[in-house]
């Protein structure tokens, strides 16, 4: 029996498109992610990263396959899955009219964090993410970097064991992206299982313990960076990625 926090077996998502017909956005994906590990999902735009992560967060229902998060199956116990995860993507924006403090309080409460400890948790996150100065300003008035920090803090409001980040640095400048990567590394050190998608090779190289290469909805390889180097004989991740992508089209 696997002890992985996240276990994915044959996860598949098929959409029907009027013009293209049946589209297999995610096709028979198998993955695992343990506590204290960052699993990078590396792929080009449209590779199926977001769809995979949306299924893991139960926003989308899989067409086939199964997945367990902290032992809870996606389709059988979707609420328990959502209790166990913090999900961030570019399409999970913050509510502009409320403050960061109200945001954290709301997400802690609605995700059933013990009521008597909500305020303590909110203050801890405000402190940890350096939000004190802006904690009572409306989110709409914050800078992009600050909003990103609040978004990440929002995913942690109920202290979930699994974190799913879909391209979290995509709209950030260099300094803010660097700070965010540090935060994600700290979360791994705190024992969280982190699944992190990106199309930026250097980011995956620096941050991920293992990297899964996804292309046209299929996982082409999943290993540590050194393992991938050994398998392909290529040194740079970019070369490794191109190797697998070309291989799959051949």
């Amino acid at each position, binding site marked *: 029996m696997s002890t992985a926090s996240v276990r994915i077996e044959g996860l598949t998502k098929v*959409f029907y498109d*009027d013009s293209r017909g049946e589209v297999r956005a995610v096709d028979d994906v198998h993955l695992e992610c343990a506590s204290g590990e960052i699993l990078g999902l590396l792929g080009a735009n449209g590779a199926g990263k977001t769809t995979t992560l949306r299924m893991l*967060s*139960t*926003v*989308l*229902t899989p067409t086939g396959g199964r997945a367990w998060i902290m032992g809870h199956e996606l389709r059988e116990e*979707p*609420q*328990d899955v*959502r*209790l166990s*995860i913090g*999900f961030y*993507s*570019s*399409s*999970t*924006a*913050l*509510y*502009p*009219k*409320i403050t960061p403090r*109200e945001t954290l309080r*709301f*997400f802690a*409460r*609605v*995700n*059933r964090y013990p009521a008597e400890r909500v305020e303590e948790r909110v203050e801890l996150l405000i402190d940890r993410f350096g939000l004190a100065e802006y904690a009572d300003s*409306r989110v709409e008035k914050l800078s992009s970097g600050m909003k990103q920090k609040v978004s990440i803090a*929002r995913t942690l409001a*109920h202290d979930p064991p699994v974190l799913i980040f879909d391209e979290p640095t995509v709209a950030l400048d260099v300094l803010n992206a660097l700070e965010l990567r540090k935060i994600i590394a700290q979360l791994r050190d705190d024992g969280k299982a982190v699944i992190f998608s990106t199309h930026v090779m250097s980011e995956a190289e620096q941050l991920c313990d293992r990297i899964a290469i996804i292309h046209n909805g299929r996982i082409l390889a999943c290993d540590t960076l050194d393992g991938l180097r050994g398998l392909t004989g290529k040194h740079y991740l970019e070369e490794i990625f191109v190797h697998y992508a070309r291989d799959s089209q051949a």
Partner: protein
Amino acid sequence: MALMDSQVLTIYAHEVRSAVRERNIVIYSIVLPLVMYPILLWAIFAGIQFVQGQTERLGSRVALVGLPDEHGALADSLENEKGIEVVPWEDTRDEALSAIGEGRLDVLVEFAEPDSNGVALRDNFTVRLHFNETRDRSSGARTRVEGVLTDYRDAWLDRERKVLGVSDATWADFGIVLENVASPDEMIRFLLSIMIPTLMIIMIAVATFYPAVDATAGERERSTWETMMTVAASRTTIATAKYLYVATFGAVGGLLNLTALALSMRWILAPLGGSTEQLTSAGIPLSALPVIAVGTALLALFIAAVMLVLASFAQTFKEGQSMITPFYILLILPSIFMQDPDMEFSMLLATLPILNIIMVIREAIVGVYHVPQIAVTFLSQIIFVAASIGFAQWVLRNEEVYMGTHEGGLGRFLKGRFSRRASSS
């Protein structure tokens, strides 16, 4: 499922908190019901009064043609009437008619020999009034002239019957006494009973409109919809909380409007005429308020569910508005068709949503309570509300709808669902 579990309340409170910080929602759901409609009503009544006053101030230009010599006193009466100016007319009748059409003359009073040879009274005559009803000044002049002619005729008939020896008692048998049994209060309540249900529906629809679009298409536009979908609450819980939020604003809008109307009734109705004393107790009777309040709340619950479902297919605020607008018009239509004060509140009517609430509110304002019909109305409305909530939850649970990937509106969605079900069975 518990309708009001802690997650529903948490999401509901969160939605309301965000909404009261949204300027458009505050304006359309709170400020407008509270202020705008009383002001609008007052402005309409004051405007009508002003226009009437202007018309009354204008003199009526009246020409007489063929006045019998024996009735010269009638010309004097017309000349002495305030607001009437008898214009000497030398031209032909046709020219007078043209002058009325062009607005140079208001009324032509044409006298002629009576048609019948069997008239009993001497010096009798027939009078024909020519006027133009499309012009206020001409219509007003007609009313003034008709008043003078009626007074003159009555006096003349009275004189002639005395000559003929008809006694006062016999003469009284031919009289017509007009007596309006409705008091000024009742007249005002009658007017309110026609106006208020229509205004109430408009107000609830306006107050519900923005929250419904905000809770669905607005969330998508702000990219907060998916954020909400990742919280550890069931889709039904989220749909219920959103529904309660939209319904609250609809009900609050309707009730605020009702309160504002009730509090400002005397002031609003003052231009309708009558002394202040006559209007002292005018307005909505206190006993009607609970019935109206319940009706308003049920109406808001129903409208909120339908608007939420329609708006949930929209990708943007603009799209949401265009998807809801046909329903908005449909809502107002019944209240327009039901302007007939003699419409009977039948049991069949009591089962029809919206129409039944209009009838309950209308009757409560004039102090009529058909208890069986009210009970059927509230019961059928509760059934409709429960069905619409269930339907809203079912629609919002659907992945294509909550992810906004469904193209088209409710009709296409239902067609797709049922054709899929038929093909799979």
